[in-house]
C-alpha cells in the first residue's frame, strides 16, 4: 500500500516569543496508507486537533512537512485551498456550521467552491446525500428544520460532496446516543468500503476505534506514543493504561481473566472474539 499522506517531523508551536509559547505537536512522523481506515486516539491536549488541522493545510507547520502523494502541501502556499478539496475535514459538532437556505445548497457549498457547476454539481450533491442517508424530499428543506442527528449528516455530506481522497473525522459521534453512534459509524464504514477513500477517525473512545479501524495511532503529550493494528496496540495494554489512556472494556476483561490464570489472548478487543476464545477454553479445558 502506498502512503497517501506522510507526516515528517511535524512540529507546531503556538505563541512563539510570548510567555505562552507551547508546542501542541512535537516532532511527529507517521504515514497514512491509501485506502486504509486509520484511528487516532489521545487525550485532550495530546495534539489531536492541532495535528488534523495540518492534514488539510488549515495550520502551517512551524517545522516539518506534510506530504500529500509525495508532494509538500505548502510547496505553493497560494494553492493551499486545493489541498482542502482533497483532504476533507469534518470538525466536531459540524451541525453548528450549517448556514444555507436549503439542505441542497449547503451540501453544494464545498463543490461550488471547487468550481463545479450544473449537472456535475448536482450529481455530487445527490450522491453525497445518498451516502449519508438524506432522502430526496429532505434536500429542499431548510437545514434548521431537521433533527440534530440529521443536521450532522448534512454537514458530513457537505464534505463528502467534495469527493476528497482522504476524509478526516473529528469525533463524528460526539453527543449522539448509542443507537445514533452505531448508525453513523455503520454509514462511515459503508462509505469507506464502497468508495475506497482513506478515512481517518479521531476519537476519545477506545471501544469505538477498536471496532472500526485497520490501524491505530496513539498520541500522548504532543508525541506519537505508538502505532499499529488494533491487536498490536492492545497487546501493549499495560503501557496504554500506564500512560493514562484507556483500553477497550473487553481488553480489560481479558487482562483480568489472565490474572486469574486463564490462557486468554490479552490483545483481544471485541466481545465476539473473547466469547470465541472462552468457548474454546471450555472445550479444551485449559484452565489451571
Amino acid at each position, binding site marked *: 500500500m502506498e502512503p497517501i499522506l506522510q507526516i515528517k517531523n511535524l512540529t507546531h508551536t503556538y505563541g512563539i516569543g510570548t510567555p505562552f509559547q507551547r508546542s501542541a505537536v512535537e516532532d511527529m512522523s507517521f504515514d497514512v496508507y491509501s485506502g486504509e481506515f486509520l484511528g487516532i486516539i489521545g487525550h485532550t491536549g495530546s495534539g489531536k486537533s492541532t495535528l488534523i*488541522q495540518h492534514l*488539510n493545510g*488549515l495550520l502551517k507547520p512551524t517545522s516539518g512537512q506534510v506530504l500529500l502523494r509525495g508532494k509538500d502541501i505548502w510547496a505553493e502556499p497560494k494553492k493551499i*485551498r486545493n489541498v*482542502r*478539496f482533497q483532504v*476533507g*475535514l*469534518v*470538525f466536531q459538532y*459540524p451541525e*453548528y*456550521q*450549517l*448556514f444555507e437556505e436549503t439542505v441542497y445548497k449547503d451540501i453544494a*457549498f*464545498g463543490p461550488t*467552491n*471547487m468550481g463545479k457547476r450544473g449537472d456535475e454539481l448536482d450529481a455530487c450533491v445527490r450522491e453525497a446525500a445518498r451516502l449519508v442517508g438524506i432522502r430526496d424530499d429532505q434536500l429542499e428543506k431548510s437545514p*434548521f428544520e431537521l433533527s440534530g442527528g440529521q443536521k450532522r449528516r448534512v454537514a458530513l455530506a*457537505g*464534505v463528502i460532496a*467534495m469527493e476528497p481522497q482522504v476524509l478526516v473525522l473529528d469525533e463524528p459521534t460526539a453527543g449522539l446516543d448509542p443507537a445514533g453512534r452505531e448508525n453513523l459509524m455503520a454509514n462511515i464504514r459503508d462509505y469507506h468500503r464502497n468508495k475506497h477513500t482513506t478515512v481517518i477517525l479521531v476519537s476519545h473512545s477506545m471501544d469505538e476505534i477498536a471496532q472500526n479501524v485497520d490501524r491505530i495511532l496513539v498520541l500522548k503529550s504532543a508525541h506519537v506514543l505508538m502505532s499499529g493494528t488494533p491487536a498490536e496496540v492492545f497487546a501493549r495494554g499495560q503501557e496504554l493504561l500506564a500512560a493514562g489512556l484507556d483500553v477497550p472494556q473487553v481488553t480489560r476483561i481479558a487482562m483480568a481473566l489472565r490474572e486469574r490464570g486463564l490462557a486468554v489472548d490479552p490483545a483481544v478487543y471485541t466481545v465476539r472474539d473473547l466469547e470465541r476464545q472462552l468457548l474454546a477454553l471450555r472445550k479444551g479445558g485449559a484452565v489451571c
Partner: protein
Amino acid sequence: MLKDITLGQYFPGDTVAHKLDPRTKILLVVLYIAALFSARGVVGYAILALCLAACVRISRVGLKALVRGLKPVLFIIIFTGILNLFFTPGDHYLLEWGFLKVSDTGLRNAVFMVVRIMLLIMGTFLMTYTTSPISLTDGLEQLLGGLKRFHVPVHELAMMMSIALRFIPTLIEETDKIMSAQKARGADFESGNLMQKAKALIPILVPLFISAFRRADELAVAMECRCYHGGEGRTKLHVLKYERRDYVALFLGVLVLAAVLVLRHMGL
C-alpha cells in the same frame, strides 16, 4: 488570529489606580473630559497632560500601551488636524497655496485639537486598563441607580452589558471555529473585491447569529433556574464602598477642573 482583538483590555494590578472605586474613576474621567473641553490655552492643556502623566506613573500601565491605543484612531487624529490646519480662517496667514490657507489660529487650533483627542483617548484607555469590565458595569449601575425612579431599567442594562462582556471571548472562539470549518470546505475570505468579501462572510455570520440566539435562550433558562427574577431584592458579593483615597482623588479632580476653568477665564 481573532483572539488578538482586545477591547480596552484590562491589565490586573495592585496600584492605587486599580484600587480606586470604579465610580470614582468614572467620575474622574467625566471631570477630565469636561476639563479637556474647557481648556483654551497652553497652560490649561499642559496641566491636563501633566495630570495624565502622573496617573500613568501611578498605575504603572506603561506609556507604550497607551500609545498603542491611539493606533486605531490615528486616522481621525490626522484628519482633524489637517481640517483645522487648512480650513480655519484667521488674522494672519502663514502659508498660502491655492485654496489651502494656513492661518495662525488654524495652526494653534490644529495643535490643540490633536492634543485634546490624544489626551482624551489615552485618559479613557487608562481607565479601562485599570478597571475590570465587571467593576465598570457595577460602577455604572450604581451611579445611574438614581434613574430607576424615572423607570430607566438600570439593572437590566447593566446585566445585559456584563453578560455581553462575558460572551465576547466565547463568541470570538466560536467565530474562529466556524471560519476553520468553512475554510475546510474551500471558503475564501481573502480574495475578491469588497462585494465578494462581504458575501463570503455569510457562511460565518449566519451560524454565528443562530448560535448566539440559542445561547441566549439556554442562558436565560439557566439564569431562571438559579432563581434570577430581575433586580428586585438582589444583593451582591462585592459591594462598592468609597474609601478615603476615593474622596482625595475626587477632590483633586475637581481642583484640576477648577484650575483649568480659571485659566480659561484668564485666557491661558
